[in-house]
């Protein structure tokens, strides 16, 4: 029986049932979401993620049990809530996906190209290993306060960079994140847009990703969320675990710090 397993399963169940958070709604979908209730298919993906963590893989056929997510090798409970953070061994601030890439290349011997091959599900896929891992890791922080580290100078600089990127307008449509996420009570069609410059808006968004997307039947990560938002801003493809995505996620995490993590969420 794996070390954190029993605790993990109870955290899973408490987390799912107690912290099923829907994003702030403007009423239109309240009835719809109430009827969906709290049966979140993410539970299956969480089980997969746990299995993958403990399963040897890669040329070195090693599991991820020695992967240090910031709280020490193999410590998963509570790790997600304190990301992104500075890692001395790579002298960089990393999010969960950048850190997993580090572990997969160092411990398992995968090449960066292999890790970046297909991190996120494409149309018709039923979920990738990375998505399952992140679902489980995030679930191991469910209910714990968002607490990204800001003690290190590079962590604070990453926050500042994230804020500047938030307002960076470019591309044929001149969009920035702020175009949609800087005001209260805004919507694109019926899609509510949290104001990510405020504590409440950032907390609501950051705490609910990764999330099971009922429209696709898979769990999507915050890293994918950033990439897909950039796609819709008519920008080029955002690389997983890159400095820009880490900075933007740091900006959200710090703005939302203190609120309880409630992932994996259940979303459109």
């Amino acid at each position, binding site marked *: *029986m794996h070390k954190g*397993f029993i605790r993990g399963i*109870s*955290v899973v*169940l408490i987390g799912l049932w107690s912290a099923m958070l829907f994003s702030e709604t403007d009423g239109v979908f309240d009835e719809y979401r109430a*009827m969906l209730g709290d049966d979140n298919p993410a539970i299956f993906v969480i089980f997969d993620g746990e299995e993958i963590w403990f399963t040897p893989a890669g040329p070195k056929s090693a599991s991820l049990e020695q992967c240090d997510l910031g709280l020490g090798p193999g410590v998963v409970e509570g790790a997600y809530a304190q990301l992104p953070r500075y890692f001395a061994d790579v002298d960089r601030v990393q999010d969960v996906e950048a850190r997993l890439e580090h572990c997969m290349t160092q411990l398992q011997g995968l090449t960066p190209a292999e890790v970046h091959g297909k991190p996120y599900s494409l149309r018709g896929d039923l979920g990738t290993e990375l998505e399952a891992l992140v679902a489980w890791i995030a679930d191991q922080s469910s209910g714990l306060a968002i607490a990204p580290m800001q003690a290190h100078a590079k962590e604070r600089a990453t926050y500042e960079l994230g804020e500047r990127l938030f307002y960076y307008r470019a591309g044929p449509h001149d969009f920035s994140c702020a175009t949609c996420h800087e005001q209260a009570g805004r919507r694109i069609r019926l899609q509510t847009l949290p104001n990510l410059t405020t504590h409440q808006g950032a907390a609501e968004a950051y705490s609910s990703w990764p999330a099971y997307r009922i429209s696709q039947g898979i769990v999507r990560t915050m890293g994918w969320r950033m990439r897909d938002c950039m796609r819709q801003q008519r920008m080029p493809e955002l690389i997983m675990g890159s400095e820009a995505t880490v900075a933007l996620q740091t900006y959200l995490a710090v703005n939302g710090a203190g609120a309880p993590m409630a992932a994996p969420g259940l979303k459109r």
Partner: protein
Amino acid sequence: MGNLDPLGLTRRSFVAVSSALFVVAALPQKIWAAALRPETAFQATTLEATFEALGGAPTVSDGIVFSTPDIAENGAVVPVRIEIDTSVLSDVSKIYVIVEKNPNPLAAVFQVPPNTQPYAETRVKVAQTGNLYAVAEANGQLYMMQRETKVTLGGCGG
């Protein structure tokens, strides 16, 4: 956190138990069930043809308490709940969920023996805004309740 385990079994045994059952239960149930699956109804492509295959046009009955959201955030997963008010409609043996504008309107059938509450809850795909029907069969008669659900173009429309 206490070792609360509401599922009543741990994850490992859960997998073991489910795979063990896999063999035992599958075989007999497979033969028995296949015979009664209303294939023609499932193949029907229009509402009328579906009703035809089930045995004719149902009459409206208030005994069918049919809950669906007025607006669905996403057509891929629309919750539906059907409860029968037995004081109005008794001896219901089957409940059908029909989505008028789907390529095949018949989505699901629930057969409920006497000792089971005439109740069913699931989630269905709704191709586009339109009418959903809950149909109940009682003593060979068909009854129905209809509700419209609007399916919106979620997300940034892009």
